[in-house]
């Protein structure tokens, strides 16, 4: 038929024709025997609509057809669809619903194709919803609205059954829930409001019940296993039939009910809680604990706290162990850092290794746990053992590793590793400056007496210390190491000088080590009366040194020198390696057969302490070079001494050690003094610039300043001369206003110490209290 010849179709007629098609569709959907639509069928239906819409008024039936379209659905749903669903329940209802929904979608698809022409112009012209939407809305308004409650309950029941372990038809649930999603036609509102909310509520109630039972019956690890399992299953559930947007909300609910609510009870379970797990090294359970608790808000705080307490307790126990062992030691050995303390340091290192591994593995390198570890170590690492501060213990430990014949016998790599760990421990110690001082003293000893085992290791640890604590920390020590190299060069040119100047003849083989004072620890210089032979040496060297430079001051420290003497005993001549002090004493016997204690003391011009020590080493120790009268084990001022010509030993060359004076007290005194100066200088500097300042502000600024590093401002150069141990001292002048300071390293300032210094400065008229406000200070110019 051509357009011109088209006959007008009137509504009744046209609709009757359409109705036939619709009925056919319904039959197909109902599963009745009905042949499929052919393309001709389709064409006819489509064209009918087309014609009826394009006819001239009053025969353009677009509106009516639009309405009838909708009515078709409404009629079908009301008469057939709804009743069929209503008569069923539970799972069967769900199945019916799914089927009917599926059918409906098909129906919508087909009918909207038939009526498609309406979509093209009519709906746009009238701003009406498109056919597709109309169709779905019918279902929503008639079926969904009535039934969604029941559906939801049925779904939730099935979910709970699955949680209890029953098998359910997951595909069915997926289809049902898809309806909730699709019915929103792009919005998730229906899904969320009509299903998700209730589902979450039910989930919460479900797990709340479970948790309240489990928490009473299960141990912490078991509970956590169950929790982890539940979370896994819920996640699984989402991926199988819930909408993906439900996942975070669902998991959050579960975590809340299982973990947040019972967090404390779980962690503090008596025999299986966090403490117990740490105690029993249950690494896997702890890892699980971390995984679970990291998901709940602030969940890790209590865990990291318990971790901190545990590590602190372990560390403190080590301290106590060492203390107890030390108190069983003999009284005389008390001031010497002994084997127990070495063991203690090693154990602390092991403890650190162990729990650092925990932090890295179980606790996945989380900053909170790094912090806990740090704080725990800071607590017990600053407790001393048996009168020795942790700073001293660490320094001694290093010394043992680095010196020849030290107690630690390790391979090169092991040493490197150990040094690395020691430096890490240093980070926890608050008195780092004290460590530096002890370390320096021991380093000096190693360097001056050639006791350093390995130069590379010495440099290596200095590099590590520098990295950790900054250049200021290690500059003096590095200077010391460099000095020795320079000293050797110096010695070479001294020897050249000697060969070029036959007049300058010390008469003895002389080796001298020249060192820079500022780098080395301070040594007291006593005015030892040198034997004549040595005096000549000093002279000769002095002259040589004048040729090198006139700008430097030499101070000789005899207490550090060594001397090789030939002892002409009756049996044989033996070479004795002694200190300069000992040598000076022995040489006295070249001109006197017998000397009293006081004579020796007078002639040497040393203190009682030194004289007692050196005489003891020569007459009461392993090698009796001198005979003592009376022959007791200790030196008293009434003793007399004679050269023991009958002395003999199978070795041709023996070393007679002179035990060093205990440095501990002096080191601590030195450091305390340095700190006082530093605090004074800091206070004065702050007050000078501020003129008037409140107490709390002053203390705060002082603390801030002292936490940083200062530059070394002065050193009068002096040189240390070795061999006959001429060590120079220089005096560091501390001028408070020009701020020449000793190095002040990372110092934990003590508020009381600062207060004390302020009061001292008030007494010395640097500051005064403000008359009207006692909390304010004024600078007194």
């Amino acid at each position, binding site marked *: 038929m051509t357009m011109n010849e088209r006959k007008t179709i009137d509504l009744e007629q046209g609709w009757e024709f359409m109705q036939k098609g619709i009925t056919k569709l319904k039959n197909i959907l109902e599963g009745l025997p009905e042949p499929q639509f052919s393309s001709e069928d389709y064409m006819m239906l489509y064209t009918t609509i087309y014609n009826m819409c394009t006819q001239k008024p009053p025969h353009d039936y677009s509106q009516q057809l639009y309405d009838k379209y909708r009515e078709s659905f409404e009629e079908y749903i009301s008469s057939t669809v709804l009743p069929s669903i209503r008569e069923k329940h539970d799972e069967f209802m769900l199945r019916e619903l799914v089927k009917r929904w599926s059918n409906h979608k098909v129906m919508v698809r087909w009918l909207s194709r038939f009526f498609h022409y309406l979509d093209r112009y009519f709906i746009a012209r009238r701003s009406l919803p498109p056919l597709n939407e109309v169709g779905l809305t019918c279902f929503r308004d008639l079926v969904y609205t009535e039934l969604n409650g029941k559906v939801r309950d049925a779904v939730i029941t099935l979910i709970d059954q699955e949680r209890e372990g029953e098998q359910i038809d997951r595909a069915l649930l997926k289809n049902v829930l898809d309806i909730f999603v699709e019915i929103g036609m792009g919005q998730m509102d229906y899904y969320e409001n009509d299903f998700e909310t209730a589902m979450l509520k039910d989930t919460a109630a479900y797990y709340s019940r479970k948790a309240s039972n489990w928490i009473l019956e299960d141990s912490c690890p078991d509970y956590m296993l169950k929790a982890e399992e539940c979370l896994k299953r819920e996640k699984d559930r989402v991926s199988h039939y819930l909408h993906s947007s439900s996942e975070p909300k669902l998991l959050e609910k579960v975590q809340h009910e299982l973990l947040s609510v019972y967090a404390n009870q779980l962690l503090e379970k008596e025999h299986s809680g966090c403490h117990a797990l740490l105690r029993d090294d249950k690494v896997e359970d702890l890892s699980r604990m971390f995984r679970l608790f990291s998901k709940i808000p602030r969940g890790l705080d209590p865990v990291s706290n318990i971790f901190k307490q545990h590590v602190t307790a372990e560390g403190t126990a080590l301290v106590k162990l060492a203390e107890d062992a030390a108190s069983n030691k003999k009284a005389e050995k008390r001031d010497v850092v002994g084997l127990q303390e070495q063991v203690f340091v090693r154990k602390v290192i092991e403890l650190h290794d162990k729990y650092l591994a925990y932090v890295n593995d179980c606790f996945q390198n989380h900053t909170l746990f790094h912090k806990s570890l740090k704080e725990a170590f800071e607590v017990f690492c600053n407790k001393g053992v048996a009168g020795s501060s942790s700073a001293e213990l660490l320094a001694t430990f290093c010394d043992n590793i680095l010196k020849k014949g030290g107690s630690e016998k390790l391979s090169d790599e092991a040493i490197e590793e150990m040094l690395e760990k020691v430096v890490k421990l240093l980070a926890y110690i608050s008195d780092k400056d004290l460590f530096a001082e002890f370390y320096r003293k021991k380093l000096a000893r190693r360097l001056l007496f050639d006791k350093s085992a390995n130069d590379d290791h010495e440099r290596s640890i200095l590099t590590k210390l520098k990295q950790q604590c900054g250049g200021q920390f290690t500059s003096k020590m590095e200077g010391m190491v460099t000095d020795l190299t320079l000293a050797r060069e110096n010695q070479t040119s001294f020897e050249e000088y000697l060969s070029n100047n036959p007049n300058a003849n010390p008469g003895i083989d002389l080796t001298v080590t020249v060192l820079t004072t500022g780098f080395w620890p301070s040594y007291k210089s006593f005015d030892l009366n040198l034997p004549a032979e040595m005096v000549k040496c000093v002279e000769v060297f002095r002259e040589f040194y004048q040729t090198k430079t006139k700008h430097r001051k030499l101070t000789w420290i005899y207490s550090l020198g060594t001397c090789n003497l030939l002892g002409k005993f009756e049996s044989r001549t033996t070479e004795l390696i002694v200190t300069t002090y000992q040598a000076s004493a022995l040489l006295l016997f070249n001109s006197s057969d017998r000397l009293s204690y006081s004579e020796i003391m007078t002639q040497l011009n040393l203190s009682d302490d030194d004289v007692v020590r050196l005489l003891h080493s020569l007459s009461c120790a392993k090698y009796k070079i001198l005979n003592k009268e009376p022959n007791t084990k200790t030196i008293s001022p009434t003793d007399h001494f004679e050269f023991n010509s009958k002395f003999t030993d199978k070795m041709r060359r023996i070393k007679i050690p002179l035990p060093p004076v205990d440095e501990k007290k002096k080191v601590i005194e030195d450091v305390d003094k340095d700190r006082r100066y530093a605090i004074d200088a800091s206070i004065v500097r702050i007050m000078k610039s501020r003129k008037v300042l409140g107490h709390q502000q002053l203390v705060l600024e002082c603390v801030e300043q002292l936490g940083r590093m200062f530059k070394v401002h002065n050193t009068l150069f002096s040189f240390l001369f070795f061999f006959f141990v001429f060590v120079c001292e220089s005096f560091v002048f501390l001028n408070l206003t020009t701020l020449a300071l000793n190095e002040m390293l990372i110092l934990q300032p003590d508020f*009381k110490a600062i207060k004390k210094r302020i009061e001292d400065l008030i007494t010395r008229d640097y500051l005064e209290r403000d008359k009207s406000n006692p909390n304010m200070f004024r600078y007194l110019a």
Partner: protein
Amino acid sequence: MPRASSKRKSSAPQNPPAVKSSNARSAGKAKAKEIENFFDKYANGGIIDPDGIVTLCKDLELEYTDVRILMLAWKLKAVKLGYFTQDEWETGLKTLQVNNLSKLKKAISELEKEVRTPPNFADFYSFAFRYHLTEEKQKNIDIETICELLNLVLGPQFRRQVDLLIDYLKVQSNYKVINLDQWLGIFRFCNEISFPDLENYDETQAWPLILDNFVDWLRENHR
């Protein structure tokens, strides 16, 4: 200077000015002479020395260690412990309007009231310390003397605090002497800090360290 003569004479309502001032002058001179005589009674070589003060105390019926003597010293603005110079004596007694023993006795009891008023007391308290610095350039006073002084000067008003503080000072070993700043701090402490709870004591403030230690000691031993 008020004229003592006005108290005695009530006869002539109006003296001609010239007569009046001459009266006044002679009265004033008489007064001064009396004060001088009074001074001489106790003076030895132009100054009242410790012995003189002992005698004075006997006459005043006061113990040598009585706080009122110290108050007298304060009023006299005495400089050297145990001595009153002629100047100090004369100026001080003039201020007190005193020229003989009985008047002095009366004045001293009045004086006590005067001293205990707040602004005066603070000044008196500070004076008490400085007065006891006997050597030149001395800045501190030993603990034992401090304890006695505290008892004397602050005891009546702050008995509890002073007793405990004295106990503490005797057992602690950090400080062997006390300086003026600490001394003044003690006074501030007694005035400002509620006792014995010490609720409002804040050691982060600029209290002298010795008081911080005292508070710690109190908290440890007396709770």
